[in-house]
């Protein structure tokens, strides 16, 4: 998996880290994502959008890595949103009840424009 990172401004003018995960997010690749994610959290960034538009597969380890980011963002007073998830990926969130925990958007732009909701 490849993690592409970008910094954008949300509607409120705050920095948002966009993580685009290209490839499968499984127990192996989650370990590649975690240090990248922690690096940004430790640098004080509190707002995140995870772009899953090019993530064809996710497992429970992948879900846990996203939960970890969500919790860290909230602890810092920020937010974490998911953008572009495919239907089969959303199904994994649905069956684990995590569809009620995360905010989902069709695209990164849509997630950025709804940035006032935390």
């Amino acid at each position, binding site marked *: 998996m490849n993690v592409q990172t970008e910094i954008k401004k949300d509607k409120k003018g705050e920095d948002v880290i966009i993580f685009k995960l290209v490839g*499968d997010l*499984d*127990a*192996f690749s989650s*370990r590649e994502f975690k240090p990248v994610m922690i690096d940004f959290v430790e640098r004080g960034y509190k707002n995140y959008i995870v772009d899953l538009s090019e993530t064809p*597969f996710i*497992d*429970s*380890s992948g*879900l*846990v890595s996203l*939960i*970890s980011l*969500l*919790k860290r963002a909230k602890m810092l007073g920020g937010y974490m949103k998911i953008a572009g998830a495919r239907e*089969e990926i959303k*199904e*994994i969130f*649905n*069956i*684990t*009840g*995590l569809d009620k*925990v995360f905010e989902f958007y069709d695209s990164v732009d849509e997630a950025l424009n709804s940035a006032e909701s935390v």
Partner: protein
Amino acid sequence: MAIYIIQASLKNLKNVRNWLKSILDNFDIGEKASFQLITAVNEVVTNVIVHTHHENPVMKVGIKVEPCGDGIRVEILDFCPKCEVKLVEQEGSVESESGFGLRIVRSLVDHFEHRKVESGNLFILVKHACSRVSS
């Protein structure tokens, strides 16, 4: 019937998924059912690699796939006769960041069971064509 034996390393998960996909493409169970079965098998294999074998690549995991009525039966063997496996039924928890794997497996296949056999722990998953997904 097809059999695939891997070393107990998480690096091999992608290979398992690709191998299983290539087999399922030859069966008429539908793309959705195929994806769901691959996801469930991935969870069980991950569990065996991490919790039974502690990612020791000397250890092996075997996966067997065969047709079963209108669907597919997958067996996963840990080759560890001395290993005790307990399937802990729990609700997935955001706080503990755990408990999601078994829920995914049970939700995505029509039948899931664990048997202790002479050669280790055997996990059996059955997925019927175009079958339901519970929520």
